[in-house]
């Protein structure tokens, strides 16, 4: 990855497969294998999106991967929180400040936060699944107390181990206006919080199930059990109240490469956020 010499504006690319060049303006290590990149466009353009959407990020010469946007709309720089799971994500996670990456997007469906007026919003995240929910929580907290805002925001977060817990500062800041509970699958020395899977937090969380709307993102098995726990708690399993964010191989972001199929969905276009009733039968089928 080359270091930026001087930004010289280029005409905005137009093709659907053509990324714009962004500069790494900051980088924060969130966990041993997770980093947040702060990106600024080299041509000064603005970048509009909705929480829950993702971008295709290019590590030049390595490849391109779909990464959720973890910042809040309207704020700069643009944040992406990336876990190292292969060559491209490793190159992105280690991109030095000042280097250049490619950005295409935003793509996909969002959390649809406008439907959440007066609701008790329950946000459940597992591991890196908190990344696409971070901007959503921030928007919801901005709106809390406003006429069209949510009545209450509950954030339930699970991580494998304490050092895998991301956005710790945000979690602390959110406690002022939201109910935040954190659990880890395996405690290490010094951890004084909850131990157990994140679904175990659902039962005791303070929300009114009948007015709850839930946003869930994490590994598929975690989402299945979380939704089950929410339904047992009394959350209505209607088409709009339970939303999950799904993941598949994605290579174009535009419904043209065919990799992200899940039954009737092209998840880059019809997802990643879908309502649980849409997804439940598909998730129940192995290897679909």
């Amino acid at each position, binding site marked *: 990855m*080359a270091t930026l010499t001087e930004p010289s504006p*280029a005409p905005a690319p137009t093709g659907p497969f053509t990324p714009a*060049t962004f500069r790494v303006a900051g980088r924060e290590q969130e966990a041993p294998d997770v980093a947040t990149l702060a990106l600024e466009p080299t041509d000064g353009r603005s970048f509009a999106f909705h929480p829950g959407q993702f971008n295709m990020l290019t590590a030049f010469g390595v490849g*391109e991967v779909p990464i959720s946007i973890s910042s809040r709309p309207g704020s700069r720089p643009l944040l992406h929180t990336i876990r190292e799971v292969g060559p491209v994500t490793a190159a992105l996670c280690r991109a030095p400040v000042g280097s250049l990456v490619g950005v295409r997007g935003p793509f996909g469906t969002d959390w649809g936060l406008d439907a959440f007026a007066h609701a008790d919003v329950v946000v459940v995240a597992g591991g890196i699944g908190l990344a696409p929910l971070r901007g959503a929580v921030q928007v919801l907290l901005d709106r809390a107390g406003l006429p069209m805002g949510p009545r209450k925001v509950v954030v339930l977060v699970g991580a494998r181990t304490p050092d895998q817990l991301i956005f710790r500062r945000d979690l602390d800041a959110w406690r002022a206006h939201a109910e935040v509970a954190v659990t880890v699958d395996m405690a290490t020395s010094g951890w004084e919080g909850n131990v157990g899977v994140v679904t175990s937090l659902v039962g005791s969380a303070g929300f009114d199930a009948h007015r709850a709307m839930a946003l869930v993102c994490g590994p598929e098995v975690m989402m299945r059990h979380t939704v089950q726990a929410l339904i047992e708690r009394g959350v209505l399993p209607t088409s709009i109240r339970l939303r999950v964010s799904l993941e598949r191989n994605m290579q174009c972001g535009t419904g*043209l490469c065919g990799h992200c199929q899940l*039954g009737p969905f092209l998840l880059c276009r019809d997802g990643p956020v879908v309502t649980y009733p849409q997804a439940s039968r598909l998730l129940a089928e192995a290897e679909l």
Partner: protein
Amino acid sequence: MTAAKVIGRDGLDELLRHLAALGYRTLGPVARDGAITMAEVSSSADLPEGFHDRQAPGSYRLEPGQGQALFDWAVGPEPLKALVFPPRAVIWTAKPPSYHVQEVADDAPPVAVVGARPCDLAGLQVLGRSIGTGPVADPIFQHRRHQAFLVVVECTRPASTCFCVSMGTGPGATHGYDIRLTELLSDDGPPSYLALAGTPAGRRALGQLPGRPAQAADERARVERLAKAASRMGRSVDTTGLPELLARNLSNPRWDAVAERCLACGNCTAVCPTCFCANFQDTTGLDGTVRRERTWASCSDLAHSYIHGGPVRSSIKSRYRQWATHKFSWWWDQFGTSGCVGCGRCITWCPASIDITEEIAALRASDGAAPTEEEPEP
């Protein structure tokens, strides 16, 4: 009906000359390497005169036959897909240190195909609905499809693997062509060609050709030939409620049975006129220039569904099921059309002789068969 015309072989020669003069790269069927393949043609002498094909699951034989017919065969292994959706295309390059991304313009010359089949036109239409329209479309497909000139030759000798009648795409062509030809045989001479224009460009080209105005008898001969072809169709798929049938049979044990035979080789997706999956890959030159290439991909491939931690579809069963359910069920949800046009290529070119029409019939016969796996969750 706009003026139909009957042309002879000299008319075909004139058509090819005319299209070449207009700047088209003229392609047509030729007998090569034991198969009908798409190649450059400059006169009717290049066309596969007298050849017949014999197709069966896992088998294709091209036989020099008798007669002067040029289009007395069904389909070769190549649909028109590669002309509008190239197997390999450089999308952009970017040079350090600025990494300004330079789009690579598609500079393929306009192509004229003389001798496309109705199922291939249908395949192009399905591709168009899948990647060529909508808010975001493939620019290469759009560019190439827009500038292509298509001369369809209606199908008068289907193969045993063909099932276009049941998919509603043949053996006649109703739309999607610039010029439509029907080869009319004669007992004592060379065939003639009933020609009809489908577009203004087709009308202009047809107007240049020597021939005589068509008469009612010519149209009757065409209808007879097509009816005979339809009756000789080797296979069929019962499409009644098919998308729903497949969607509710994801756990049908038949998928396990077909997986025992499927090699996951990807031949079916390579020869399919509508398979559009693609990989995007970067390579870096010695000077650091990055090239992003798009290449054909296949859902038969283990890597197709790879996400961190491994592939989603690790079993062959799940990959065959993905291909079949996508073609006949999910394609409707995604693009409002069937993903199959009934050309039969996936049957012929399957090295394991897997026959999609047989698989669908078996699924229908065992509709609702008990899943072998655990109960679905609520």
